[in-house]
């Protein structure tokens, strides 16, 4: 790997005042034709390109991105990584990703700041207790670490939680996945971009897809703001805008796009050293390395592409946060934003071929795609290269909405909605 980052390169560059670092990826003009094109330069798209080049030796490929890489939902999520899903198919998918996370910084020679600080999911009523206990058992059967904590153990693990029995939704316990945690989302996009670029992948930014060209049942290229580019394999990883791209190819997807919000506070000293999620009251919180509280709120109930989200959603989340963490009552929130998430009817993703030959979709990650980034890229690359799904993403084909084999993770797996 040229320009390998190491302690030695750091020392060497320190002597020249850090002014001679090479750029981490090129800024090429698109070629006329590629063996494959990935639409969407977020974490999933860049990871797909990286694994296509690395594992499947497809190096004449491009990633086209309408804005800048990592500027969409990759840079908007709350960076939570976990794999404690209920169903076997989901457990396989998300734990595949988690295993790659564990050595990703070394593999990419880029520090993605993966921190296994644990993710705790709280139970607030008896049904929560039953569901979450069931999930810990299901997780263990699938080889995924999971423990049940009673109220005292929750308090011990995260002392600032209000475990008083008198609050509106008292904490009756929780589950803990210790291998779960967070990573720096920008670094994930940049690390994969750098890795893909060094393997010869063209990353073309400010290049918006305007149309998908078909010759009968076969895809043959894309119209973009930088001209027509030919390719017989096109993988679309466009998150909230997946349906927009699908419509260009004359396809409909089982998706609805909605704004999902998050917010961060002013930075403070370390106060919470884990990630705590609560489904029932819809509040989840962690603390960034800068010291900001990172708070995830919910989605709006209607289709919208506005990247804003409604005020009442934030209000509901903060109300729950304040009851669970009275210590935050005087914290000031600094920034709030929305991202457009594409939600499937069963709250599981689609990593699949379509009825158009050579056109593949990786979408429907809804409110929780960041955690799957490396696994999603790996499996989507496999699907594109072989024109067949990997066994880990076979269940996540688009045809499940016809056959009825849904992977229903709504609520069942602590998916926060």
């Amino acid at each position: 790997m040229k320009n390998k980052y190491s302690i030695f390169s750091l020392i060497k560059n320190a002597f020249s005042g850090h002014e001679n670092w090479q750029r981490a990826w090129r800024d090429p003009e698109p070629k006329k034709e590629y063996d494959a094109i990935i639409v969407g330069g977020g974490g999933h798209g860049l990871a797909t390109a990286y694994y296509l080049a690395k594992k499947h030796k497809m190096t004449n490929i491009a990633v086209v991105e309408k804005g800048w890489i990592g500027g969409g939902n990759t840079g908007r999520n709350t960076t939570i990584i976990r794999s404690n899903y209920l169903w076997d198919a989901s457990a396989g998918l998300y734990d595949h990703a988690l295993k790659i996370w564990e050595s990703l910084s070394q593999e990419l020679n880029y520090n993605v700041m993966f921190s296994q600080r644990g993710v705790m999911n709280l139970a607030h009523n008896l049904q929560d207790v039953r569901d979450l206990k069931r999930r810990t058992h299901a997780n263990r059967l699938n080889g995924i670490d999971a423990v049940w904590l009673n109220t005292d153990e929750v308090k011990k693990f995260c002392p600032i939680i209000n475990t008083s029995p008198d609050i509106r939704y008292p904490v009756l316990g929780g589950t803990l996945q210790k291998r779960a945690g967070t990573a720096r989302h920008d670094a994930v996009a940049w690390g994969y971009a750098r890795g893909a670029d060094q393997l010869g992948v063209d990353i073309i930014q400010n290049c918006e897809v305007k149309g998908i060209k078909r010759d009968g049942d076969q895809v043959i290229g894309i119209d973009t703001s930088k001209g027509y580019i030919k390719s017989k394999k096109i993988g679309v990883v466009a998150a909230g805008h997946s349906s927009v791209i699908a419509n260009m190819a004359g396809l409909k997807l089982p998706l609805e796009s909605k704004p999902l919000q998050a917010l961060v506070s002013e930075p403070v000293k370390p106060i919470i050293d884990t990630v705590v999620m609560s489904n029932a009251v819809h509040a989840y919180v962690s603390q960034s390395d800068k010291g900001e509280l990172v708070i995830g709120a919910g989605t709006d109930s209607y289709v919208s592409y506005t990247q804003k989200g409604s005020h009442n959603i934030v209000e509901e989340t903060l109300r729950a946060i304040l009851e669970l963490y009275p210590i935050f009552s005087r914290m000031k929130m600094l920034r709030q934003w929305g991202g457009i998430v594409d939600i499937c009817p069963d709250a599981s993703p689609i990593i699949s071929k379509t009825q158009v030959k050579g056109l593949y979709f990786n979408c429907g990650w809804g409110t929780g795609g960041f955690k799957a980034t490396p696994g999603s890229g790996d499996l989507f690359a496999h699907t594109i290269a072989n024109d067949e799904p990997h066994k880990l993403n076979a269940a996540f084909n688009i045809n499940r909405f016809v056959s009825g084999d849904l992977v229903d993770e709504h609520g069942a797996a602590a998916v926060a909605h």
Partner: protein
Amino acid sequence: MFIINCPYCGERDQTEFSSGGEAHIVRPKQPTELSDDEWAEFLFMRKNIKGIQFERWNHSHGCRKWFNVVRDTSNDKIHAVYKMGEKPPANK
């Protein structure tokens, strides 16, 4: 967050309403004769338009009546509101 002009109650905050998703998806007249593909189309496939979308809303914290809205999903501006059974206005 925006204001919706309920055809029965007048202008109210969006939080009083529930979204019913894409409008004018006709329920199959002969469900027993539908193929799996047609069921999938009816149940799950959505246009999910970025731009002018025809959709159903219910005034769930008001008169509880259903009606249709024409809304631009790229900026949440509402172009028209019309009652159930009425013809949708020409696309603007």
